[in-house]
């Protein structure tokens, strides 16, 4: 994953649990990188190890932590200068989600070796849709739930999320039923 993701993990832990906890978690994960560079690719194992160590140190389940991280990701990327890109990608949550695949495709062209997930909007109405999430990485569905919550806050809308199909339970991929209002 790119350094941007690890930077976000660091920011989330440092701002919400303190700089010292981050130092402890980093040591526990065996990560000795002083500063992550946003556009540099790092092995996925670093991000997974950081989440695993954070879960252990903070006494929070990895699933809850990933959900919190997903929500934080929306704030973080906005603050890191990607806010305008997000603003340009849609005026409503559903418009944004509709543009998300193209956004990730463009990002993958710029960031060499990136394997971004895909998000397909199916059965879209004014107030509902099924979001089909596919990723080469395992176990990140809770992060998608957090991302959706973060985006709903950004677009100031009420959103209910139902995890209809789960890859962890044997489905081909994850499907989230979304309903506005």
């Amino acid at each position, binding site marked *: 994953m790119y350094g941007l993701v690890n930077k976000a993990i660091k920011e989330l832990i440092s701002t919400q649990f303190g700089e010292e906890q981050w130092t402890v978690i980093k040591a526990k994960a065996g990560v000795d990188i002083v*500063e992550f560079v946003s556009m540099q690719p790092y092995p996925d194992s670093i991000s997974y190890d950081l989440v695993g160590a954070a879960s252990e140190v903070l006494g929070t389940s990895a699933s809850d932590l990933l959900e919190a991280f997903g929500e934080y990701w929306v704030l973080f990327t906005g603050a890191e200068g990607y806010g305008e890109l997000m*603003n340009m990608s849609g005026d409503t949550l559903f418009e944004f989600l509709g543009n998300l695949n193209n*956004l990730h495709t463009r990002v993958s062209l710029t960031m060499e070796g990136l394997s971004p997930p895909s998000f397909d909007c199916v059965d879209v109405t004014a107030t509902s849709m099924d979001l089909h999430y596919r990723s080469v990485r395992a176990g990140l569905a809770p992060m998608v739930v957090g991302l959706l919550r973060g985006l709903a806050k950004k677009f100031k809308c009420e959103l209910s999320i139902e995890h209809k199909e789960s890859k962890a339970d044997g489905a081909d991929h994850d499907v989230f039923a979304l309903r506005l209002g």
Partner: protein
Amino acid sequence: MSGAFGLAPRLFARVFPFHILLDSEMRVVQSGRVVYRLNPKLTPGSLFGDSFEVQRPQGVSSFDSFSEHRADLFVLRARESGMILRGGMEVDDREGRIVFLGEPWVQEFSEAKALGLSMGDFPVNSPIPDFLLNQHTLRVTLRDSTKLSQELQREIEAKEEYERLLKSSNTDLQHFARIAAHDLRQPLRTLTGFGSLLVDKIGAELDEESRDYLDTMIAGAARMGRLIDGLLAFSRVSTDGGEFVPSDFNTIIGGVRDALRAALTESEGRLTWDELPTVLVDPRQISQVLQNLVSNALKFHRAGEPPRVHVSVEKQAGSWHFSVRDNGIGIDPRFAEKVFVIFQRLHVRGVYPGEGVGLSIVQRIVERHEGKVWFDSQPGCGSTFHFTLPE
């Protein structure tokens, strides 16, 4: 093939959301949905010049001049919004029409957003969003690089400050060593000298208790002299270190054996070693390391058992690992920290002589060579002192 592929006007408008079609009088015939949304004066029949000015090529305003520059890159500026369009002019001489095909020229997402553009305004195949993303990526990378470079600069400055303090501290240490060598020694010499004179002059007349007091005083002064010598030797490891040169350890250990010949003979000890390498070191200091370790091994031998000391070496990744093994009295691992501290002794002075300086000098010299020193031992089972040196 049944004919050439042509775009229906509606499809054309979708594919080229920023196009502007003009007639021979430079009036707008039609325009793309996005360029029209952002420039509402661009209505059919309106004069093109009311909405846009041509920045490049210069001096172009009429149909003929547009036609002459059909191969040029055009830069248009919207009079109201300030939006810049870049693109080319396709001229249909037969129909008397010109079509401008281009896209907005923006360099930041914020600039695009300020103009009222969104991602959906660009055709999927447009390179503009990718260009914006690339630009942003470069900016983020530059920001990260600048931040890292600033942190590196701070670390360099901190290191320079540390080196300055270290230099100052070394100067103080040298100054202290000079004081210890000369100024402290003089009163000690006076003390031991006059003490000896007293013994010579009135020693025979003194009772046993008074004579004991005098001997204790002279012995104390002599010990203080040895402590000063130890302190001086310890401080000189850093201040009087020599150059690192390729040094044959077989020669060094041979020299150590010669220097300790008397102690070896007296204790009936034996010093052996494996074939040793040539390493880049300060040979005088490394000789001191081996001499201190071997000398300790000879000193702390078990009663009735002659000391056996063996020096071996093992090559590791990027370093040499030396071991000095003996069959002596051993050391309780509880004293692992204490052993290398200056003036720390583990035994009663009367049983084993010494001031507790040797191992602290060993540690200091090995550290000066960027190596590590440690030991493993059990009481009664001998000791092995290990030290590493960079290859």
